[in-house]
């Protein structure tokens, strides 16, 4: 960029260089009544980018249910807030860092984690857990191993240094992510329900304060990059990657929380994508005020930064606050104690404008409305593709032996243990991790109490591709199910909508239908959306990723001694399957294993049955009848049973559904099902109760021995199965596979 000068007046060409189309440029000039100067153009272009304005997605996001008895603050703030009783609030959100992580996996993933934590602690919460939803390309793709290594190390190093446990997440491999991986990070924080901090900066004459790290020329134009499709030239955009400094963030966290305990902050907003621009504009626009900044006062890391550069810098570990007048000295003392920069850089006004001065000159004067509420909004055309027909089980090849098929599935990249990943994350720090990674949902105790939250992230992208509506439903339902399996009452979700180019009607249709499916599930399960993030243009050379609406769910466990995990326990004699068995093999991992493809309709989600079965199972955990529950998902019943056996180091004898083809019974991926470990006596009672409630349930396994015994076949020894399950990841990452 040339040195900024108010004399450089924007043109269509200059706008195009900022990825702003001619129409939008004309609209901007019209609204402004003149052409913007270069600094102003930079500000408008980032605020109008997909990343900040949600211009393609807003019309659809509005359709999601966002209210409920537990919701304190839904979408629209830095993160969502729910009430978990006793004066405690849980603040959480998920966000993508896809493009930066593809270009520089370590730093991209690390700064993603840093960013989502700031969204949560800016609202007054201490982060208590992190999760991450990762999608990589095919394992045999040349870049995959390097990307996995970098992303995992980046997430781990940042969260570990912050001292926040990373307790869960998910990892998929699919060739459709070869050129565009997905790195979605979720942060969950705990706050005092009556001390939540918001970003609206109402009122004039209040000091605007910059805290945290200094501003450098980091990631200038990151926000527009995140909204642009990749092409082979994108390697050229490299300097836009930022380096994370978790130590600075840790100091920022402690300093902010220390100041938040005082009565000093009127409004606070982290500087994330589009840094100083979006934070100042959003604070003023939400508060109906204006903001005037003197950029000379911005703490700078590099010499000779222009107004343009300062406004668009994405340097990390920074916050913008509006303080109660007079509290500056107190705030300054706290930030200096933590060795962070602190500077009063402006004041709020009643003009409704963002006004910037630099070196004595007025360098920008823009009405905030243009930048926020009046940003363009598109109702883009959609062209839904037809939903494929259900594939009958007979059309999916059957294995010669269920045991061999189980061995193949459990040792495949899709189902192999993720221990290699989560052992690199400190998942125990803060001493409240009651259920560690490796179960259905992680359980994190609310410090100093007897209650806990259950946390999970889920989506099955292959289902979403086949049928975005059912896939959207399924993603929400699966988080609900995972929380339920841990014994939790699901309360609310956050989402991270990762899709391709919305200007293509078939992609826009995927987005729209997924939202509709999610909304239907949220309504039926009374499980609202309180925060989220949209990442579009996830494509390389015109090939889109699988539609991936990642869902992060939060549930409440009232009594931390009543939780369930997947591992078979010493008292378990019987495994009961709760839910209906129909042998749905379309889109299943077995179909993929057997044919190399997935085809047909995904398994449908019957939300009424889902709720009934889930409430029933949760009741068993709450009553202390069982502490062993696993939901049935990828790979079907036999895989889920094997996972319980491996985790508990106890064998079992499998009794398949005799009315189905054996492979459909074993590997069908019907939804809304759970496996429950019980003593013999309790099993009988549970079956009676299920029957009385009209919920399908039957005995699916007898526990015992040290193998998975399958009628008429050679038993599969747990030690062998366990080795395959555990070895895939370390072997792959060592380069030996």
């Amino acid at each position, binding site marked *: 960029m040339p040195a900024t000068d108010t004399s450089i007046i924007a043109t269509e060409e200059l706008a195009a260089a900022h990825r702003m189309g001619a129409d939008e440029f004309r609209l901007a000039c019209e609204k402004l009544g003149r052409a913007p100067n270069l600094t102003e153009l930079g500000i408008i272009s980032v605020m109008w980018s997909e990343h900040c304005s949600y211009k393609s997605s807003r019309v659809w996001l509005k359709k999601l249910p966002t209210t409920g008895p537990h919701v304190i603050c839904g979408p629209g703030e830095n993160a969502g807030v729910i009430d978990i009783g006793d004066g405690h609030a849980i603040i959480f959100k998920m966000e993508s860092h896809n493009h930066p992580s593809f270009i*520089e996996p370590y*730093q991209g993933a690390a700064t993603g984690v840093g960013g989502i934590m700031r969204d949560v602690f800016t609202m007054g919460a201490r982060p208590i857990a992190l999760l991450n939803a990762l999608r990589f390309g095919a394992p045999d793709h040349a870049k995959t191993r390097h990307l996995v290594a970098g992303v995992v190390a980046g997430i781990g190093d940042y969260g570990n240094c912050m001292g926040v446990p990373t307790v869960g997440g998910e990892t998929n491999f699919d060739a459709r992510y070869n050129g565009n991986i997905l790195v979605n990070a979720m942060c969950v924080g705990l706050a005092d329900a009556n001390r939540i901090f918001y970003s609206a900066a109402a009122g004039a004459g209040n000091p605007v304060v910059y805290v945290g790290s200094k501003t450098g020329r980091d990631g200038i134009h990151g926000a527009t990059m995140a909204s642009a499709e990749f092409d082979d030239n994108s390697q050229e955009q490299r300097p836009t*990657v930022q380096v994370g400094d978790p*130590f600075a963030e840790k100091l920022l966290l402690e300093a902010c929380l220390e100041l938040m305990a005082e009565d000093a902050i009127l409004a606070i907003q982290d500087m994330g994508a589009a840094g100083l621009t979006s934070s100042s504009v959003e604070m003023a626009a939400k508060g109906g005020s204006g903001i005037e900044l003197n950029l000379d006062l911005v703490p700078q890391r590099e010499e000779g930064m222009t107004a343009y550069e300062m406004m668009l810098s994405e340097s990390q570990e920074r916050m913008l606050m509006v303080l109660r007048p007079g509290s500056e000295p107190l705030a300054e003392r706290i930030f200096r104690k933590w060795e962070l920069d602190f500077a009063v850089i402006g004041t709020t006004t009643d003009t409704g404008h963002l006004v910037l001065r630099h070196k004595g000159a007025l360098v920008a004067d823009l009405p905030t409305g243009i930048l926020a509420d009046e940003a363009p909004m598109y109702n883009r055309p959609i062209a839904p593709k037809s939903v494929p027909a259900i594939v009958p089980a007979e059309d999916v090849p059957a294995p010669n032996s269920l045991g061999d098929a189980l061995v193949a599935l459990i040792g495949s990249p899709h189902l192999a243990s993720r221990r290699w990943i989560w052992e690199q994350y400190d998942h125990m720090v803060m001493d409240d991790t009651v259920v560690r990674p490796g179960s259905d949902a992680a359980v994190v105790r609310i410090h100093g109490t007897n209650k806990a939250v259950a946390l999970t992230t889920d989506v099955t992208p292959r289902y979403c591709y086949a049928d975005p509506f059912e896939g959207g439903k399924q993603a929400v339902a699966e988080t609900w199910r995972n929380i339920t399996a841990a014994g939790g009452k699901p309360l609310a979700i956050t989402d991270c909508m990762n899709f391709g180019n919305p200007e293509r009607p078939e992609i826009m249709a995927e987005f729209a239908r997924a939202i509709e499916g999610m909304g239907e599930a949220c309504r039926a399960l009374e499980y609202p959306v309180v925060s989220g993030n949209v990442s579009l243009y996830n494509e390389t050379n015109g090939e889109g990723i699988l539609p991936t609406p990642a869902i992060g769910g939060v549930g409440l466990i009232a009594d931390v001694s009543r939780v369930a995990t997947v591992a078979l326990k010493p008292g378990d004699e019987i495994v009961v399957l709760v839910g209906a068995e129909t042998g749905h093999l379309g889109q299943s991992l077995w179909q993929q294993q057997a044919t190399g493809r997935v085809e047909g309709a995904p398994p449908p989600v019957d939300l009424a049955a889902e709720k009934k079965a889930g409430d029933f199972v949760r009741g068993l955990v709450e009553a202390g009848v069982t502490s062993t529950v696993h939901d049935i998902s990828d790979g079907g019943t036999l895989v889920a049973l094997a996972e319980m056996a491996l985790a508990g180091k106890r064998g079992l004898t499998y009794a398949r559904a005799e009315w189905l083809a054996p492979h459909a019974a074993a590997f069908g991926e019907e939804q809304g099902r759970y496996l429950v470990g019980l003593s013999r006596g309790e099993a009988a009672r549970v079956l009676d109760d299920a029957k009385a409630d009209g919920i399908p349930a039957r005995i699916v396994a007898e526990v015992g021995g040290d193998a998975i015994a399958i009628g008429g076949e050679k038993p599969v020894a747990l030690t062998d199965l366990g080795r395959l399950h555990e070895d895939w990841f370390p072997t792959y990452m060592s380069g030996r596979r």
Partner: protein
Amino acid sequence: MKARITVTLKNGVLDPQGRAIANALHSLGFGGVEDVRQGKLIEVELKAADEAAAKTELDAMCRQLLANPVIENYRVELL
């Protein structure tokens, strides 16, 4: 043949390590320290036909693995 590769952060890229070291040196009383940048040193022992071949190979190693051109510069010296 022996080579020394140094990998340093590009100008303008945040260097938290370097800054932390500078701060620590200051608090130890080394007031003359104005700036610190941290980098990596990689010493490679390799078989190559001649110096030119070695240089080409080392250069390829840097581009492919040892440095990330997004944020780093590298320099190769034969010893």
